[in-house]
């Protein structure tokens, strides 16, 4: 392979980005070296097994990936803002919507949600960490390695270009012979293993590590939704693992799983992809539902209305989400009976979802609604998501879908589900839990700017897409002629996306501003919260709780506060056991990334050599009998005194 093929060359846009990426990397390394921070990074972050730090690393990566995916989105909007523009050519547009889709779902939504889950779940159940802290670190680093490998494709070898769904036969080697789709198969595999491990970790954490007295019906709703999400992860991700393995075998080793020739069956890919893919969209949306529930209850200053039916609704949605995958290809020529059945199962998802919407509304009713930024996101979610939901029901009706399928109507629909359902939730969660992570709040005033710009920009960007879709514009079209009459809608939409981007910029500015100037005196419970994470200091100490709280009902902390039961007696303190840091997770992930890179280019000898690293990491891990360490009562008491004053 010549160097010319190895590096993506030629286009000024790409060249500029390459230089920018290169300079940023060199700059970062130089900066860290200059500040002598390598050791600190290694000890405090790279080898950490603390769920809060891991959560924060997930969040940072997620925000960065949001930036990358957002730039992709803006480029697409620019390209289609006028008819027959030649800003991007077909190949670039194809690569960009592919990377946009993959990055937004797998490298933006997933890490941001898993990051918040990581920070919050152990705190909410009164635990010291997750069940398997080291595995948790491995999950993060594998995700990170996968994300980086995927992003490298932009500069080395070329990006995948068969859509985030990578449908075969197109994604097969006959039709996309470059390395782009190898990146897809291998980077997603690596990240997927990490996600699967996260799912297992949270299932066990929630079953085994709840505070004494926290029975199932006393679980905060976010914990419930995380629990059910984790179960879906365990049930769905292995399907994707297999599908990607087949894809890898087809592309790298010439097998015939999905090929047109020699008895392959491309439709097997479609089925496997969506057997994972539909649950996947619920994997990103259910934790979001949980976060909204927490925020809404807190800022309506009321308990969540219909808690039990909320739990059943989440479970029902999760169950149904496994039975609807065919709605992604009603137009494949299935029998009328099959399409009818899947129309029904799909529409049935609207029932528990409707229950949730009404429960949220009735939580608000008779409350005292405070419009904090976190709450604004949760409120805006309700109408915006309703639009996503009703258009979803329209798409669920197979016969009608024959007219919407693969049009911009669909693109509008899923952005109306994913942006309110995931992005708004992540924003709500960030504003809400920020003080718990960092010990200061994000600025509320800049937050309002962020909110209004983003929400207005979002609606302007995506509302017109419904209409161009109904006007016959199919998705993934890099250009169109003026005579189609779509230019007005798309131009408006492009303007909307600039406002949307301004909203994101406001968030970044907010983070910067608050980091510099916000008051560090927020107390442990800045929002008058209801759940256990607010019972400990902000930012939460590394041991989480000096004494594990006891729970006697739902919203335990709310009642502890009422009963004046939040103090701490020194005599109650016992030494706290903590896990030690570990180098194996990051080491293994780096090796996985390197092996993955070699596989992408089909350099098998190098890949096998590098795999020795995996063996080394696993053996080291098996022989690791490190039992962690203990924090003494004195240390605990000192740290607790810092924010509580004197202990009782």
């Amino acid at each position, binding site marked *: 392979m010549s160097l010319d093929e190895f590096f993506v060359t030629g286009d000024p846009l790409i060249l500029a980005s390459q230089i920018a990426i290169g300079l940023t990397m060199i700059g970062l390394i130089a900066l860290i070296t200059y500040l002598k921070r390598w050791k600190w990074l290694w000890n405090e972050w790279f080898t950490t097994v603390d769920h809060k730090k891991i959560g924060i690393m997930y969040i940072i990566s997620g925000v960065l990936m949001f930036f990358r995916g957002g730039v992709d989105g803006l480029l697409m909007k620019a390209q289609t803002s006028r008819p027959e523009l030649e800003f991007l050519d077909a190949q670039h547009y194809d690569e960009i919507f592919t990377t946009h889709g993959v990055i937004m779902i797998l490298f933006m939504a997933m890490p941001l949600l898993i990051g918040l889950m990581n920070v919050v779940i152990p705190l909410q159940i009164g635990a010291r960490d997750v*069940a*398997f802290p080291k595995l948790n670190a491995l999950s993060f680093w594998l995700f990170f390695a996968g994300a980086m490998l995927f992003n490298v494709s932009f500069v080395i070898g070329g990006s995948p270009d068969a859509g985030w769904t990578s449908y075969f036969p197109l994604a097969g080697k006959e039709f996309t012979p470059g390395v782009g789709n190898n990146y897809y198969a291998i980077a997603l595999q690596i990240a997927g293993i990490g996600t*699967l491990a996260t*799912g*297992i*970790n949270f*299932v*066990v954490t929630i*079953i*085994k*590590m709840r505070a004494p007295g926290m029975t199932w019906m006393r679980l905060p709703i976010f914990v419930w939704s995380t629990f059910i999400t984790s179960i879906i992860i*365990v*049930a*769905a*991700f*292995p*399907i994707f*693992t*297999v*599908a990607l*393995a*087949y894809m890898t*075998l*087809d592309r790298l*080793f*010439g*097998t*015939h*799983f999905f090929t047109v*020739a*020699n*008895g*392959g*069956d491309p439709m*097997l890919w479609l089925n*496997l992809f969506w*057997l994972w893919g539909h649950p996947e969209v619920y994997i990103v949306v259910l934790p979001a539902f949980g976060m909204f529930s927490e925020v809404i209850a807190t800022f309506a200053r009321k308990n969540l209305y219909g808690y039990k039916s909320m739990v059943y609704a989440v479970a029902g949605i999760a169950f149904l989400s496994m039975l609807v995958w065919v709605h992604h290809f009603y137009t494949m020529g299935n029998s009328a009976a099959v399409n009818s059945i899947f129309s029904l199962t799909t529409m049935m998802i609207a029932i528990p979802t409707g229950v949730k919407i009404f429960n949220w509304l009735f939580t608000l009713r008779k409350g005292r609604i405070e419009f904090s930024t976190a709450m604004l996101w949760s409120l805006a979610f309700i109408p915006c998501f309703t639009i996503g939901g009703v258009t979803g029901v329209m798409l669920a009706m197979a016969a009608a879908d024959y007219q919407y399928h693969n049009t911009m109507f669909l693109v509008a629909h899923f952005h109306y589900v994913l942006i309110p359902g995931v992005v708004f939730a992540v924003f709500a969660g960030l504003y809400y839990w920020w003080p718990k992570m960092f010990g200061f709040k994000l600025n509320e005033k800049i937050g309002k700017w962020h909110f209004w710009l983003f929400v207005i920009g979002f609606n302007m960007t995506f509302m017109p897409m419904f209409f161009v879709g109904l006007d016959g514009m199919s998705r993934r079209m890099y250009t169109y002629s003026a005579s189609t009459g779509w230019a007005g809608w798309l131009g408006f939409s492009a303007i909307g996306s600039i406002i949307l981007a301004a909203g994101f910029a406001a968030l970044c500015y907010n983070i910067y501003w608050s980091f510099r100037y916000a008051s560090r005196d927020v107390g442990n419970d800045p929002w008058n919260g209801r759940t256990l994470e607010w019972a400990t200091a902000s930012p939460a100490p590394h041991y989480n709780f000096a004494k594990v709280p006891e729970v006697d009902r739902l919203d335990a902390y709310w009642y502890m506060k009422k009963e004046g039961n939040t103090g701490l007696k020194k005599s109650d303190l016992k030494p706290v056991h903590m896990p030690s840091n570990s180098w194996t997770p990051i080491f293994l992930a780096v090796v996985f990334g390197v092996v993955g890179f070699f596989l992408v280019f089909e350099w098998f000898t190098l890949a096998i050599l590098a795999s020795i690293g995996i063996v080394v990491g696993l*053996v080291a891990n*098996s*022989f690791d*009998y490190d039992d962690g360490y203990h924090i003494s009562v004195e240390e605990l008491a000192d740290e607790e005194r810092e924010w509580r004053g004197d202990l009782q």
Partner: protein
Amino acid sequence: MTSHANNMPLEYKTQQSQMNILGFWVFLGAEIVLFSTLFASYFVLEHNTAGGPTGQDIFILKDVLIETFLLLTSSFTCGLAIHSMRSHHKTGLMVWTIVTLLLGAGFLYMEINEFIHYVHEGASIQTSGFTAAFFTLLGTHGAHVTFGIFWISLLLIQLARRGITEKTASKFFIASLYWHFLDVVWIFIFTFVYLKGMVM
């Protein structure tokens, strides 16, 4: 943390061990999904031989029966190993585990031979949809067995060094779950791939 766990078997003594075992069960749940997907894909592609050999053309019942026998026996000896472990019988645990691994290695040897035979018959993984699904299903199982042999060998070293402790016990117990699981998967392979393939 270890309070009311006193009458539990050794491998369940600490909270962390309990969580490890539960976590492994959840992992096996994921493995079930993984193998179900492999089986389902196999059923979809089973008849797509594209003019290449079919299962009926190439399967050899005798070899498969020997493989089945080896793996089933290894599952049994694995059970004996755990039994020894529960009665704190370190040598018993060692010996039965080694027997288990040898049987596993025998199985692998037979399976590799079987594959070589198929390739000679003109059925390599690249031949058709059928062979791709067949070799991937079998290969994934075989790779699990291989991984298991290496993993349990490491545990044997740890056992030799540390004896039967709460930690090594829970590691051995988890490895035994894994080994039994592979046996169950094999029974499905035997029934739905080989038997079904030979009669239909």
